[in-house]
């Protein structure tokens, strides 16, 4: 097999000083084509594992454990000296794989940043310092007088997050808040006059932000290079590998279904009852009840219905039938029809939007008047019990489900619901409302066939 020579060189670097590379430039290495693919798959296992962990709502400490474990099982090379190379090569291969669309880039960027974050946390202070220096982070330690002046507030924030209360020799850094948007968003720091007071521990956030923005730029560059030259040049060699790599792991894209167009409006009521997951069933019922849904709800349900196979014309008719009872047909045409057509890629950027997956729904933040989101996460226990009861979940399973919910395993809770209603196990787990729907339809069809 012909070796891949990214830069036509054949030297092997041995001078890697840190075990936490920033992936500034592609390695001048020779890589065997099979390694090219195998390394990438190993790294994908890690990233996919992180993504799964997130969608199960894992807490930060649990994630830390998980990431370390994933890394050690997948990314260790038999020869320890090769670890760094494997790390770098696999990163650059996946960069190529995930540079090609906005959605792929976004996923890769998030997962790589989380990976970097956790690796940074357990990298040891020497590596940390080195990375911080390499990233050129602009922070200054605050003086003792300044510390005393804001000490009360720092104590308040530290207590809020269960950290040790800072004492006289605690080191705090002062950075412009714009550098640490993550910490600001989570109210994890004390803010004063435009400066965030961060602990050494939080420096990781700084590092991760820098890493992320650098990688984001690099990905767009790679994408430009990919579309302009690499794809064509490597048509017979790398392109097939690259193209196969991402689909093998992201799961099916529910925006283009084989069953597309199979569902008509009159069937909706019936299939909503039999095969919609709770989140969609709830939205569907609320829509029928109130003849209205707010934006988040319209997006979540609308794209799901598209994935189920409701054609654009039917979708317009369906939404209009409901909304016009509340706002009138004229206002519907004026204010709402556009966004439905937009969802189907007929307006604006003309992107055929994909239905939301569980992770996206779980991480949404429904507010007053909203009905979207994941019921297992966003409902109160009483409401969830009532809703599940209505779906026909028995009491014993109910307790199991509540148990999963309390441990924030929302997708597992949904899977249990599926199993309870359909009376058979679902080993793959529920990752997507449309997957729930399709699996449910399959079960029902096979039941019908066997009774017929």
């Amino acid at each position, binding site marked *: 097999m012909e070796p891949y020579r990214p830069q036509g060189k054949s030297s092997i670097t041995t001078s890697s000083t840190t075990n936490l590379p920033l992936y500034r430039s592609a390695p001048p290495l020779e890589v065997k084509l099979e390694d090219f693919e195998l390394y990438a798959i190993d790294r994908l296992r890690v990233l996919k594992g992180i993504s799964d962990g997130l969608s199960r709502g894992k807490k930060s400490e649990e994630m830390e454990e998980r990431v370390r474990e994933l890394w050690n099982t997948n990314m260790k090379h038999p020869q320890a000296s090769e670890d760094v190379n494997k790390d770098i090569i696999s990163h650059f291969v996946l960069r190529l794989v995930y540079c090609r669309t906005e959605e792929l880039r976004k996923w890769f960027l998030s997962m790589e940043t989380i990976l970097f974050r956790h690796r940074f946390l357990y990298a040891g202070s020497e590596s940390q310092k080195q990375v911080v220096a390499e990233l050129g982070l602009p922070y200054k330690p605050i003086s003792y007088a300044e510390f005393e002046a804001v000490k009360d507030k720092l104590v308040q924030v530290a207590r809020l997050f269960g950290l040790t209360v800072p004492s006289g020799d605690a080191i705090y850094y002062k950075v412009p808040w714009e550098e640490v948007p993550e910490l600001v968003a989570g109210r994890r720091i*004390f803010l004063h006059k435009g400066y965030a007071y961060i602990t050494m521990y939080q420096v990781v956030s700084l590092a991760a932000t820098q890493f992320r923005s650098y990688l984001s730029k690099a990905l767009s560059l790679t994408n430009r290079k990919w579309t302009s030259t690499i794809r064509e040049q490597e048509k017979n060699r790398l392109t097939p590998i690259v193209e196969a790599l991402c689909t093998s792991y992201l799961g099916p894209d529910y925006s283009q279904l084989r069953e597309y167009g199979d569902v008509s409006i009159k069937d909706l009521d019936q299939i909503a009852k039999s095969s919609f997951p709770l989140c969609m069933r709830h939205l569907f019922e609320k829509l029928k009840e109130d003849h209205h849904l707010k934006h988040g709800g319209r997006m979540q349900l609308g794209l799901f219905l598209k994935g189920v196979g409701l054609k654009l014309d039917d979708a317009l008719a369906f939404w209009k039938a409901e909304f016009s009872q509340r706002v009138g047909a004229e206002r519907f*045409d*004026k204010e709402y029809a556009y966004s439905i*057509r937009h969802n189907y890629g007929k307006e604006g950027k003309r992107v055929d939007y994909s239905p939301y997956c569980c992770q996206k729904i779980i991480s949404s933040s429904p507010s007053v008047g*909203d*009905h979207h989101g994941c019921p297992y996460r966003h*409902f*109160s226990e009483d409401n969830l019990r009532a809703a599940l009861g209505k779906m026909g979940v028995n009491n014993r399973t109910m307790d199991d489900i509540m148990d999963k919910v309390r441990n924030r395993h929302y997708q597992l809770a949904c899977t249990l619901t599926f199993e309870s209603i359909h009376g058979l196990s679902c080993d793959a787990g529920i990752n997507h409302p449309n997957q729930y729907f399709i699996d449910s339809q399959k079960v029902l069809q096979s039941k019908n066939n066997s009774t017929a």
Partner: protein
Amino acid sequence: MFISSRFKRTELAEPGGKGNFPPKLLIFPQFLSRLPPFLFLITSLSPEPNPSIPVFRSNFITCFPSVSLPFRSVFPFAASTLQQFTGAVAKMVTAAVENQESDMVEGNEQKPKNIVSDGFDANYLKIYYGKLFPHADFFKWMSYGNDGKHPGSDQSYFGRREFSFTLDNDIYLRFQSFNSLSEMENSIKEKCPFKIDIGPVYSVDPAKRHAYAGDNVFTPVERELVFDIDMTDYDDVRYCCSGADVCLDCWPLMTAAIKVIDTTLRDDFGFNHILWVFSGRRGVHCWVCDGKARRLSNEQRAAIAEYFHLYQGNESSRKKISLTGPVLHPFLARSYIEVLKDSFESQLLCSQKIFSTEERYEKILDMIHDESITSELRGRWQDNRRPSKNDVNSVRWEQLKNMLQSGKHKAKGTRRHVEEIVFSFTYPRLDLEVTKHMNHLLKAPFCVHPKTGRICVPIDPEHCDEFDPTTVPTVAQLLEELNAADMEVDSETDWDRTSLGESIRFFRSSFLQPLLKSCKEEIESSHNLKVQQSKNSLSW
């Protein structure tokens, strides 16, 4: 003789025909098949001093299929010059006021009967934009010191800003841009928009965006950090009105929001140039205009929005707000102590009668997850038939507080419920999306709200308690004041003789002047830096 507004329009529109307005409506069938039904392409020849070089402009105009396009009514006064017109209408307004008692013309069914005091009429806009709207201040603001006087100023700055006009019948003109004060002023006076929205500053002139299509060259580069607070989002915690209505009983919700956000933007984020504006009906807008704020990325904007955001629960969760952790974040603690607690206890508690009926107090008991407490309180409140000289709401609130904060229940962590209740009823509810993205449009200050006719006047955050949304001048009132005053005086300061004067003076002295001063300093120092750098590179 009473002149109905409809009649006036037609009469005033008669002199038209000389100019090249109203625009021609061109509908291309081939476009229609691909575009949504409500997108038409309207091309117009904009009025141009030299008719031999007409400027050809094309605008995508969104209008809707159910609405026919009566251009007469859209651009009723296109060709009439301002002088002819303002005089004429002003006189008519006077006439109408004088005669409103005696004359009621039939066939005027949908127009308000009392045309001066009641809100809004498209005709008023022409005079408002002609005589009162502070074009020059507006231009100075949006230029941020880039006025060409300083070598370091950016001449193209103002011209890259998107304005969006909403005309009669919901016709939207997006991506309007102007290269000078006079260009902007003329366009506003000529089109007489019902609403002016301000968008971001783009990388290139938004009117020429199609020339850069496909290359991602046309992107927003600067935009004020904005906040939009709308009273409708508080419908579950106000009992006096709902939807679009506001009154003095619920307005304290807005006052509390202004105080919390203003203090936080200044003390925590270090911003200085903040403009608060009444949205004309039921809410407020906030414009943070510091250079630093204008250059924030979407991610940083989202971080600010999240910093302010408290999870409010949704329709299916029991709790509205939950405050976890052993203490409150310093920002929330300050908001509670300095603003929310007082706003709740001394204003909203009684004005909204929060505990007055069973349905209302049940909603609060629902937030307390301790059966023993809720049943005891419920028992007391249901039996409580004795008339008390104190307000029932205050009495019940004190009882609830005592119960939750008593030593008996302290261990169960129920103390926090008091704060949670106050936060649920008073904490600002932001439209997060508006804040998070650079390219959201927001209505410009000093617009006239098309439904109420009220002017979107600035609000002084330091005296926001005194602000009364029900006495904000309407356009009709201003015109009346203008009429009453002497017409002979210099037209530059017409506004000074109306109740708009106070607002404009406040806008200038408290917002515009300090803002421009710091913009100049910023331009100066970045220019010096550049000069220094180029000197350094020359010396090598």
